[in-house]
């Protein structure tokens, strides 16, 4: 039995009576519609400009803290964080993949921070992102993550970007938004099971700076890549660096690079040997990535609604979804063919994503192993800098200059 005729039949059951002195009340639902997405885009643009002013012009840690606070208040609590630019890549991926309409608000939310990162670095992460802001403000004592471990953990967001994009393209869902750890905080509702996740992230965040930004956020991968080509780059001090190392110790995100010397001939030899070894490993990395994707695909597709429904049908489980399916107009054959098509698509995409992930890991390793430009001052790796302004506060030259200005 299909559902639609049932309703049509139901409507004929009791015809509306003809009243003498009674008018039908109007439905006033339309008056309750509200769309704040474009407002959010506008406010975000203002925020990014203000952040650039605080970070590049006033060069002040205090101003950046105020910027974070404002960002947390406005985007975190007023707009309740969702939808935020961080998850928008999923909407874009889905829209591009299935050809559905992507509203301009969504496009702008996605594009604005990326465009800003091409000119201003990761100013969005600094405080206009509510997730970044809450981590920035709820950080107490820094435990420095050792550099090699940091490099390994930093590949997690890349992997997540790959997985989540595949999920979005095939309609499995938006896992990033589902598992967003700070949402219970923004909604001030701790009665959900997701509150455990927020507690873990907030607790880790007290000691490790920005655990979500550095080791989870997939949008951060895009911002990181784009900010490599940023027009403006943060400089620790406008004066001549005295190599006191205080900025390096002050940066909990590992974004301050120590001076690079010319290196001895022996170091050059080991360096170039390491790079050729890495280059030789590329095919293996691609293959391993592909394998990972190939064997991960069934796990991914099992999260899809249709695949799950098909599995329940096959196993003979009488779930609500099965009952709803049986009263719908879709036939079993249609569902079956859709599921097979889905599974094949996910297998292909997941394998491709695995190969790309392998390539990106190798690119990161080679970039890490290659020789940096010789420099005798401490500098900032713009792609890792979250624009928090701690190095400005740590630099004695900067402090002296600020003091003189007063």
């Amino acid at each position, binding site marked *: 039995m299909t559902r639609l005729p049932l309703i049509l039949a139901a409507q004929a059951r009791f015809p509306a009576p003809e009243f003498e002195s009674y008018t039908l009340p109007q439905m006033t639902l339309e008056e309750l519609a509200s769309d704040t997405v474009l407002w959010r885009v506008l406010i975000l643009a203002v925020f990014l400009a203000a952040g650039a002013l605080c970070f590049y012009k006033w060069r002040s840690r205090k101003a950046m803290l105020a910027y974070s606070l404002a960002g947390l208040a406005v985007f975190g609590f007023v707009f309740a964080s969702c939808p935020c630019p961080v998850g928008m890549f999923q909407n874009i991926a889905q829209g591009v993949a299935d050809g559905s309409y992507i509203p301009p*608000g969504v496009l702008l939310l996605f594009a604005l921070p990326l465009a800003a990162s091409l000119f201003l670095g990761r100013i969005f992460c600094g405080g206009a992102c509510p997730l970044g802001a809450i981590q920035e403000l709820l950080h107490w004592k820094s435990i420095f993550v050792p550099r090699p471990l940091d490099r390994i953990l930093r590949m997690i967001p890349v992997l997540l970007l790959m997985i989540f994009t595949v999920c979005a393209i095939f309609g499995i869902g938006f896992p990033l938004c589902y598992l967003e750890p700070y*949402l219970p905080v923004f909604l001030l509702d701790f009665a959900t099971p997701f509150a455990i996740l927020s507690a873990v992230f907030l607790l880790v965040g007290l000691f490790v700076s920005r655990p979500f930004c550095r080791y989870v956020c997939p949008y951060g991968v895009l911002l990181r890549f784009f900010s490599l080509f940023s027009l403006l780059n943060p400089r620790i001090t406008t004066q001549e660096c005295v190599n006191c190392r205080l900025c390096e110790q002050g940066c909990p995100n590992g974004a301050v690079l120590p001076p690079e010397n010319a290196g001895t001939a022996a170091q050059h030899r080991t360096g170039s040997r390491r790079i050729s070894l890495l280059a030789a490993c590329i095919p293996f990395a691609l293959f391993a990535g592909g394998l990972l994707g190939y064997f991960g695909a069934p796990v991914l597709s099992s999260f899809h609604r249709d695949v799950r429904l098909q599995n329940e049908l096959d196993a003979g489980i009488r779930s609500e979804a099965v009952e709803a399916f049986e009263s719908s107009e879709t036939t079993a054959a249609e569902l079956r063919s859709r599921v097979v098509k889905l599974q094949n698509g996910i297998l292909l995409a997941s394998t491709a994503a695995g190969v790309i992930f392998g390539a990106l890991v190798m690119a990161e390793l080679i970039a890490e192993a290659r020789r940096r430009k010789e420099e005798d001052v401490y500098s900032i790796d713009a792609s890792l800098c979250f624009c928090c302004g701690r190095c400005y506060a740590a630099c004695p030259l900067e402090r002296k200059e600020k003091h003189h200005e007063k």
Partner: protein
Amino acid sequence: MTRRELIRTGLLALIAAPFASLFRKREETGTGYFWQIDPDKCVQCGKCETECILAQSAVKCVHQYASCGYCLFCSGYYQDKRIEFNTAGENMRCPTDAIIRTYVEDPYFEYKIDEEKCIGCGKCVKGCLAFGNGSLFLQVRRDLCRNCNECRIAKVCPADAFVRVPADRPYIYRKPPEVKS
């Protein structure tokens, strides 16, 4: 133009590329950005009440008066296992007493949803659909909904009844019965 500038221009173009989709012709049934329940797909499982991230769900029951039969006996109002036709708790369908019944003229009664009390459990919707005209149905209230990018209810909805709708048509109504001229 330096290499950096060239790359920057290229990346800007890459960001701008998805905007091309704005020039595409939007279909009549084009998807939008707001979550809504398709009343024809809804099976009243009761998950709307419990799964929403808000403490009180943004889903509420809506009454489409135009298709209501104004019955004396309303199967959305009274419980199946009622003892008597009166407003004692054990006779009522609604667990929060959110349906207000007012006398119109013999033998018709108007049924109105008290939105403060409605929790979006869908029990009355199920009752109305089982015996009546189906004039009660669940909708996501745009003034309450936070419009999460990944709606928690949509994720668990067994009937896949959650759809995205455009901002200018944020509600999905049930087709009202044909008016006899």
